[in-house]
């Protein structure tokens, strides 16, 4: 039996009311600070992307008119005038920023539609794919990282590290093609392309087919949607899983080496309890930051997966816009990604502050 004196009394706690006020106050100022600098970030980003776009050779008016073999020079010139491309660069930029301020992302000449309208068609597909990849990749990466940290310097650790490094290093399109070959061609378990089978009459309301299937209570369709989603999601999940595995391993090794963990072990608490109840809450904190970088990157990093699996998402759309020099689309999507990075990182920081009082105090 342990002597009572060996267990120290907890220090007096501060008044809960004042702690709560201080917490929310610091969070509010954090949010306001971040939101205040967001326009500056976007302005700088828009200027950078606008300039780089104009520096790359290629004439969107010429491409729109059918290329040099087909386009009449007079038609090309008229298009340039209609689009304002004959104006000085500064005028074009000011006009673009003015549109942005009014919430107008511009008009895509390659799609002949408003950028917001085109994105509204494409974003749900990418969101669905990205969420699926996260749901697969985060638990996998976390599990691998924890496992490697607990079995540090063992064969299991080496294997997990091999997977993590391999996952980061191997070209994702190669992985996709290999998975497609194995599971679609050889085994025939999963289809390798598109979101739905050919000639499907499924009507989507939200653009996220899995959600629509659930809302409609159509579980047969849900199974079909998930089957089409499986291979691209698994392919896309590999990089986040590998990154998270590496970070989780490192973070858990740090935390598992702490004295209080050693104490818990000395008390005979089981490893699973130690990891999940004692270590995780500290070790997972750095991963929030990593997720804040992974999530926005997934949304535009899906291009290779979308090409291999014929997934009609934002990545492919952005690539098409680049090859056709659809400046407005490239600029607008880049800005949206910038906003996404800022917002997601802000949410990550807020989460961090909520979870770790030391951050709030600082």
């Amino acid at each position, binding site marked *: 039996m342990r002597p009572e004196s060996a267990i120290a009394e907890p220090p007096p706690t501060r008044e809960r009311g004042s702690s709560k006020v201080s917490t929310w106050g610091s969070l509010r100022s954090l949010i306001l600070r971040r939101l205040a600098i967001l326009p500056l970030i976007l302005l700088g980003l828009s200027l950078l992307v606008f300039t780089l776009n104009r520096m790359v050779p290629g004439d969107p008016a010429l491409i729109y008119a059918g290329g040099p073999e087909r386009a*009449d020079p007079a038609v090309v010139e008229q298009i340039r005038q209609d689009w304002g491309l004959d104006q000085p660069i500064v005028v074009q930029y000011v006009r673009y920023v003015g549109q942005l301020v009014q919430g107008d992302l511009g008009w895509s000449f390659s799609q002949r*539609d408003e950028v917001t309208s085109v994105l509204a068609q494409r974003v749900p597909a990418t969101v669905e794919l990205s969420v699926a990849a996260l749901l697969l990749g985060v638990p996998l990466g976390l599990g691998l990282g924890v496992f490697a940290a607990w079995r540090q310097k063992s064969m299991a650790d080496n294997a997990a590290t091999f997977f993590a490094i391999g996952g980061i290093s191997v070209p994702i399109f190669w992985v996709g093609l290999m998975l497609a070959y194995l599971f679609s061609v050889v085994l025939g378990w999963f289809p390798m392309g598109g979101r739905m089978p050919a000639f499907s009459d499924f009507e989507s309301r939200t653009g996220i087919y899995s959600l629509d299937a659930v809302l409609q209570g159509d579980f047969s369709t849900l199974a079909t949607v998930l089957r089409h989603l499986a291979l691209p999601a698994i392919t896309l999940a590999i990089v986040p899983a590998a990154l998270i595995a590496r970070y989780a391993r490192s973070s858990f090794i740090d935390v598992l080496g702490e004295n209080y963990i050693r104490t*818990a072990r000395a008390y005979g608490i089981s490893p699973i309890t130690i990891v999940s109840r004692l270590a995780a809450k500290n070790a997972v904190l750095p991963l929030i930051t990593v997720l804040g970088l992974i999530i926005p990157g997934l949304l535009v990093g899906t291009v290779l997966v979308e090409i291999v699996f014929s997934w009609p998402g934002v990545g492919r759309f952005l690539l098409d816009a680049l090859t056709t020099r659809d400046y407005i689309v490239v600029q607008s999507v880049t800005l949206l990604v910038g906003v996404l990075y800022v917002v997601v990182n802000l949410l990550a920081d807020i989460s961090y502050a909520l979870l770790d009082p030391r951050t709030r105090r600082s």
Partner: protein
Amino acid sequence: MEHPVDVVPPDGIQSRQSNGLMTPSRGWGITMTHVPDSEIRRLLELEQQGQLMGRRGFIAGAMTLGGALAFGGLAGCAGDDSNGSAGTLGTAPGTAGADAMRGGSLRLGTSGVVFPNFYLGTSFGVQLVSYVQFAWPTFMGSPAGVELENALAESYARSDDGLIHTIVLRPDLLFHDGSPIDAEAVAENYRSCFFADHPLRDDGAYTMTSGGFGVPPAVDRVDVTDELTLEIHLTTPRADIRDALSTHLVMNPAVLAQPGYGTDVGALRDAGSGPFRITGFQPGSSVEYEGFEGFHRDVLLDRLRLEEIGDPAAMGLALRSGQVDGALGLSKSDHDAFVEDPDYTLFVSEPAAFSVVFVFSSPRKPELEDRRVREAIALAMNREEYRDAFFSAGTVSPSTQMMHPSRAGYNPDVEEWPYDPDRARELLDEAGVERLSLSLLGRPSTNYIPELAALLQAMQADLETVGIDVEITMTDPASWFVERPNYDGWMTNLGPEVPTVIFPLFFTPGQSMPADDEGNWPSHDPRSHPEVMPLMEAAMGAFDPDEQDRLFQQLTQLHQDEILMYIPLALVGSSAIARSQVHGVQPWAFKALSQETAWVDET
């Protein structure tokens, strides 16, 4: 604030713990910096009672089992994902006395073809003679033997002065909403193309109009003389406008009046005039059709789908996995492997569709201004080896000139350049060229040049054997358009278009090659040759088709003998690989029959 903590573990060993870490408790946000006794006791009690492990183990086990069941269930739902269907038993069309095959669904994979919209003013390229024709067949056949059997027009005539061109439609044609395709509907389509202020005109480039009729179009008006007859009145005499009209679609005017019709499936469903009606459209990704029973020719398929697959390797896997029934735009290695596989059939367009040519462009290299140097380059290229090594099996044949064999201006007397590196070295010696450096610009492979980078490297190796160093730069298509005048040469492919389109690409100002600052053309530029411009003007303005043909043939011979600013490499046919159960597929070409003859045998 840190608090040193004395903790006595059960074995009596005493240790001190002082750290700044947040220690966990029941909830987040507790600022204690030590292991709370209550927490440890609680956890120990739960473990001793088996509750913690039991609950945790149950959850972990349930999740593992659930995940396995989900994966297996999804994989096990490996029913026919194709939504394909068999056709009625029968025999192939065209067999004397046989019934035609009816029904069936066909899914075709393609690359870089599906456009983001179907607006009338869109500058369709190869799409015009491919999938666009499924719903909107080319309006009329063109001269020189490239007949389009599913064309909407029945006859064509022009006045003696070449100003009035009369077109008679086939009777009983229907748009896909059941409304008649009459002369007024066709006239409205043309008026929206010819006249910028027409209410049905969209904001497209209307390149097919500018290319066929000039800017502004040399059209005075379009009159309707009876239900099936319309007259196009020109401002400038033309011998024949069928080729120019062949690139114009005929859409339902009622749909043209609807804003946003180009991407609206509901509108597009009623807009067509061809053998297939659009039933689904994902811009840039896929188009789905159903057979239109009101078409004036038999349509065998029930359903047809065109799917964009951006990667050639993925295209091959899609065909093998059964995601598609046929594929266009396979990589050469996949294509050749499928050709050898008895489970698949090769379909090649006849005649071959595209000419692949190497074009000289640089005004910067004085050596290239000597025709002997250009001839040496032509002789140093082993074109037969290139065709065998870098083009898909069964699709390629020798080429002697840029004009298509089916077109006016094709000169049957022009022969292919031989492969003769010894003669090439002699010519370079005669020209006084000891060592020459060339810069070539390439772009990503296309359907018609599937191994472009490798082809350029082969050319590089061949030219090095005769003392010509080659530097290759690869770039994206948009940059390629702009950058190519800054290089010494590039590869391109030309479609089977009329000579009035092809010849100006190489022989008239404003196309491809710029003059120097003083407006002088380099000596290898055709425009500097004293005979070229007079011949071009005469040919472009010739009223008699035979005379026009003769003049363009003369230009072709002149180019071969004296100018030589492009080197033809190959004549490439459009090809498709499909499962052996698929029949009658028509790869894109100007002889496209819009897959009306395609059918699928699933027996």
